[in-house]
Structure formats: structure tokens, C-alpha cells
């Protein structure tokens, strides 16, 4: 009963302590704020581009054209008030002398040569109006010679609806990846946001010099367990703080920001893959939490602990470089090794599970290895915390840890 009471006390204290820190809220709200700002910039940029494009079309300029391709419709040139230049050189001279604002030369073979545009400089962004009109003349001329169906084909506007089957059952590849793939995203977010805090959770007890009083008051295992559980709670709070604004932005301003709509009822849910994904995620998170806590417990200061964070990050994010191999060569020894070695397995396992090329036997073996590794790592973290507790000025060496184990 006392152990549970102490665990609850540690969890409550650690969670409240973190919630009181401005840095927590900065991180929690900073991410959705940045997303909102980026979307805002995209939105206003789109608006500005559309307005600028409209303004461009309204701006009139004098034009001369030489069409050796015979594609441009004379009626279009007439509508624009364009003059016909007898040759390329004369057209260029007309621009240079100021007789016209712009000159377009359409070569005989548009597939071999470029359309040449010459114009009076009106500023870096406004100069693009000349090319826009030159292209418009071409596209309008061609469009007028084809029917709407042919136009749709030429513009690549024909929509294709593809249906795949796997073992006789309809299979929607990308959609099937969404829910299992969320675990991978979640893993990255949590380690990214909380990795530093996990590292510091134990080293700060040394820096505060509270460790002696703590270890003579509460069991080290209960203390570490309390810290890890509090980190999980804080991670869930942070995920909520990130997701809620994102969902609100999607619901309230999705169309205006041109965010594609998602029909949630259409997203496949495979209980086996989701279950495997959840298990891989849970044990991966525990393993890396234990690793970061252990590193922090062995270091005398937060600064030295943070130097090791980079090494841990390599193990976590390094496998990303093998993404193509995981998808294309899932049976290769290289992929198999990365999928089973506990420090590299989280990414390959979650990715392959999401993609659907992770056999159940391999998944279960990978999960078992992760689970055992996570437990061992957490026990090691407790041991390092206990034996490194009094080393305020130096790292706990493996030799010292082994000596303490044997004494």
C-alpha cells in the first residue's frame, strides 16, 4: 500500500512540477502555433498569388508576335491587339526601341526549341506576366482545336479510380497504413518532445542534491517508475494540446486552407496490425525511456547527459535512412537484423507493420525482444541510479557499476 502511495505521490509531484514550467507550455503550444502560422502563411500566400495573378491578367501591354509554329490562332492575336513581326530579329528590335512592351517568338518545332519571350523590364515579379501570356496564347490556341474530352486528357485532368485486391479482398494500400502508421508518428513526437526531459529526470536529482534524501525515503524502483509514468502522462497531455488545435483548425478552417477532407469512416481498421503496432510502440517507448533515464542517471550534470542524447537519437532516427529497403526488401538479412536488434527495431517494425510486409512470427519475435530489452533497460536504469547517486562530479563507469554489483 505504501509503495502505491509513494508511486502516486511521485507521479503527482513530477507532473505538477512540469506543468508549472513555462518551457512545457512553450513546447506544447509552440508546435500547433507553428503549424497555424505555417498554414496562415500558405493561406495568405495563396490569396496573394491569386490576386496577383488576377492583376496580371488585367494589366495591358503592347505585344508583337512571330509565329513560325502555325499554332497560334490569329483571332487571339487580334483580340490582344498584337502586331505581327516579320522576323525574330525585327521583333527583338521593336522591344529594344520601345515600339512594343513585349515580343513572342514561337519556333517551327515547339518540341525541339523554346518559345522566346522578350520584354520591357517592369520589375522581377511583374516580368513573369509576359511568359504567362505567351503560354496562355499557346494553350488557348491548342484547346480550341480539341474537344473537351481530349482537352481533359492533355491537361492531365482525367481522374482514375484504382481498386486493388490482396488475397481476394479489397486492399487500399495507403489508407491501410494510416492507423498503424500513427504509432510511428507518435513515437517520433514523444521522443522528440520528451527525450530531453527523460534524460534530465534523473540527472536533475543529482544537480539538485536531493538524491540522498530521496533514496533514503523512497525505493529507487518506485522513484524511477514514478518518473517514467509521469512522463507518459505529460506526453499524453502534450499530445492532446497539439491535436486539439490541429483538429479545431481542420474543422473550422479546413476548406479555406485547402486541407483535403478525410472521411474517417473510410479508413480501414485492421485489429491485428493495430494491436501489433500498439505493442511495438509501447515496448519501444519503454525501452528508449529506460535508456534515456539510465544515461541521465550515469551523468553528473544535465550538460554531459545531453551530449549522449545525440547518440541515442542516432539509434532512433538512423533506421529511417533504410526506409526503401524496409519496403522493397523486407526479407533481406539487413532488414531482418535492423528489425530485431532492439535499439534499431522500433522504426523498421512500425514501418513494416504499417506497410503490411511484416510477417506475424517476425512481429511477435520483435515484440518479445523489445519487451525483454525494455524490462532489462529499466532495471539497469534503477541500478545505475542507485549506484551513481553519490557521484556528483563524475560519470558512473561500467567498471564501477560491475564492482558494485559484485561487492
Amino acid at each position, binding site marked *: 500500500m*505504501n*509503495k502505491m*502511495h*509513494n508511486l502516486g*505521490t*511521485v507521479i503527482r*509531484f513530477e507532473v505538477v*512540477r512540469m506543468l*508549472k*514550467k513555462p518551457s512545457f507550455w512553450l513546447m506544447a503550444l509552440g508546435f500547433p502555433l507553428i503549424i497555424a502560422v505555417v498554414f496562415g502563411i500558405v493561406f495568405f500566400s495563396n490569396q496573394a498569388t491569386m490576386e496577383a495573378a488576377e492583376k496580371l491578367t488585367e494589366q495591358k501591354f503592347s505585344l508583337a508576335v512571330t509565329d513560325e509554329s502555325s499554332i497560334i490562332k490569329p483571332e487571339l492575336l487580334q483580340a490582344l491587339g498584337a502586331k505581327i513581326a516579320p522576323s525574330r530579329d525585327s521583333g527583338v528590335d521593336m522591344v529594344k526601341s520601345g515600339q512594343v512592351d513585349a515580343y513572342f517568338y514561337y519556333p517551327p518545332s515547339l518540341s525541339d526549341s523554346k518559345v522566346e519571350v522578350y520584354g520591357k523590364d517592369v520589375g522581377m515579379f511583374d516580368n513573369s506576366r509576359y511568359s504567362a501570356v505567351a503560354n496562355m496564347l499557346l494553350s488557348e490556341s491548342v484547346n480550341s482545336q480539341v474537344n473537351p474530352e481530349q482537352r481533359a486528357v492533355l491537361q492531365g485532368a482525367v481522374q482514375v479510380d484504382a481498386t486493388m485486391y490482396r488475397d481476394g479482398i479489397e486492399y487500399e494500400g495507403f489508407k491501410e497504413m494510416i492507423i498503424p502508421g500513427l504509432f510511428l508518428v507518435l513515437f517520433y513526437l514523444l521522443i522528440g518532445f520528451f527525450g530531453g526531459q527523460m534524460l534530465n529526470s534523473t540527472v536533475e536529482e543529482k544537480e*539538485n*542534491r*536531493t*538524491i*540522498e*534524501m*530521496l*533514496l*533514503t*525515503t*523512497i*525505493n529507487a524502483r518506485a522513484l524511477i517508475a514514478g518518473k517514467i509514468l509521469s512522463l507518459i502522462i505529460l506526453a499524453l497531455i502534450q499530445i492532446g494540446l497539439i491535436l486539439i488545435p490541429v483538429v479545431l483548425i481542420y474543422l473550422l478552417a479546413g476548406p479555406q486552407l485547402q486541407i483535403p477532407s478525410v472521411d474517417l469512416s473510410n479508413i480501414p481498421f485492421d485489429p491485428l496490425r493495430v494491436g501489433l503496432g500498439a505493442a511495438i510502440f509501447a515496448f519501444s517507448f519503454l525501452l528508449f525511456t529506460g535508456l534515456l533515464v539510465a544515461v541521465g542517471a550515469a551523468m553528473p550534470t544535465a550538460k554531459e547527459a545531453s551530449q549522449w542524447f545525440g547518440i541515442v537519437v542516432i539509434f532512433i532516427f538512423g533506421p529511417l535512412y533504410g526506409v526503401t529497403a524496409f519496403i522493397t526488401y523486407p526479407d533481406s538479412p539487413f532488414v531482418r537484423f535492423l528489425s530485431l536488434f532492439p535499439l534499431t527495431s522500433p522504426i523498421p517494425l512500425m514501418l513494416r507493420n504499417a506497410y503490411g510486409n511484416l510477417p506475424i512470427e517476425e512481429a511477435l519475435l520483435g515484440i518479445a525482444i523489445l519487451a525483454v530489452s525494455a524490462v532489462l533497460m529499466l532495471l539497469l536504469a534503477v541500478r545505475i541510479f542507485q*549506484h551513481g*547517486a*553519490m557521484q*556528483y562530479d563524475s560519470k558512473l563507469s561500467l567498471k564501477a557499476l560491475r564492482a*558494485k554489483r559484485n*561487492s
Partner: protein
Amino acid sequence: MASTRPIIQIENFTMRFGDKEVISDLSFEVNRGDVFGFLGSNGSGKTTTLRALLGLYQPASGSLLIDGKPYRVDGDTSLGYLPEERGLYKKETVLDTMVYFGELKGMSRQDAKDFSKKYLERVDLADKIDTRLDKLSGGQQQKVQLGVTIMNEPELLILDEPTKGFDPVNRRLLMNIIEERKKAGATIVFVTHHMEEVERLCNRIILLKDGKAHAYGSISEVKKSFGGASMDDIFVKVYGGEALEVGNE
């Protein structure tokens, strides 16, 4: 019936850091109800012995028992420990810190709060109850840490230099608090360099030098063995310094 077994039993305790032997075959006992002075200069092994007793260090050999067993935080003996390395959560308030440790020691939240408020009033820190610890002076932080140490009225108090850095007024306040705990029946192990505190509070002492005991027993026994000298002079004699000869000044 109350146990007559010593509350602390240390037998043939040896401690090494690497190749260096810092404590050599040390043995002593602390009886229930004792106020036991643990004396010695800096580096003599006092703090090392206490940490080994509390399980923070692994001894090279020997046994260190509290109430007949190696110390465990979830054991039967209630203990309050004031370490030599002072430290609390700097960014937390006085009350939050005291309540946290009180709850860890098994007190209810309300009891911990009530004790904290009474104690802070006693040590003249009532107005600092909601102040962050890093805004207090070193002496004020020490008072808070002492409050954390005694707040569950432990039957065994281990105080490593509790008056370090205190002015005479606060030192006397602290002595009074320790005496109250003594009268309440607590056993107190008390590390100090101030011999007047030893003479006032302690009934038994051990004096360490280079990890070995050079004096051990009741105050009267120790004084007798050193020819009736004061504790100050005994300390100086053991450490090879000059004795104070008042008549020759």
C-alpha cells in the same frame, strides 16, 4: 517490551573507493535513546559511514545494521536523514517541498501541511511558506531541510553537520529542536565539529581519524581515557595539534 538491541550495529566495516581504503575495520553501536556524537575532521570517513549505513554505498566488507537488518526504505524503522550535501527542489515552494517529502514518508497530505506550517512558524519562516526555495538564504534552506528530516517524527535521526553555516541564534534553535526529539525518545546520530554541542547533547561519541576509531564510548569514559581533557582538547590531541594552555598565554 521495548527492544534492548542497539538500534545501529556496525561491525568490521571496511570501505574502499577504487584502491584507496577510506574506512578500516570500523565497529561501533548506537543504543536506543542515545544522542551519539559522530566526530572527526573532514575526510575522516563520517559521511561515508553514514551513507554505507543507509545503503547509498556498498561496503567492501563488514555489516551495517539498523534494528538488526540492513536498512531498507520500506522497512520498519522510521528514519530521518539530513545529509551533508544540502539540496532541495530549488524551483518549488517551501510548503510544496515539505509536503512532498512528508507524503513520501507516509504522512497524509493534510498532516504534512499542518506540520509544515507549525514548524515554519517555529523557525521564523512562516512568511516564506509560499516562497521558492532558491529565493531563500542558505541558512533558511537548511532550516527547511531540517524540517523535512524530522517531519514524520522518526525514531532514528541521522544529522550530518546540521548546524553548518548557522549563526549562534539559529544554532541554539536547532539544538532545542534536537533536544525535544531526544526527550520524545528518538535516537540521534549527530555529526558535528562543534564540541560544545557534543558536550551539551551527546551521551556517547565516536571519534574517527583516517577511517579508524580513536575514541569511542560515553563522554565520561572517553574523557577519563584522555586524562579528563575536554572534548576540544581530545579532538586536538587525536589530530596532533596544539592543546590550548590557558595559563601560559
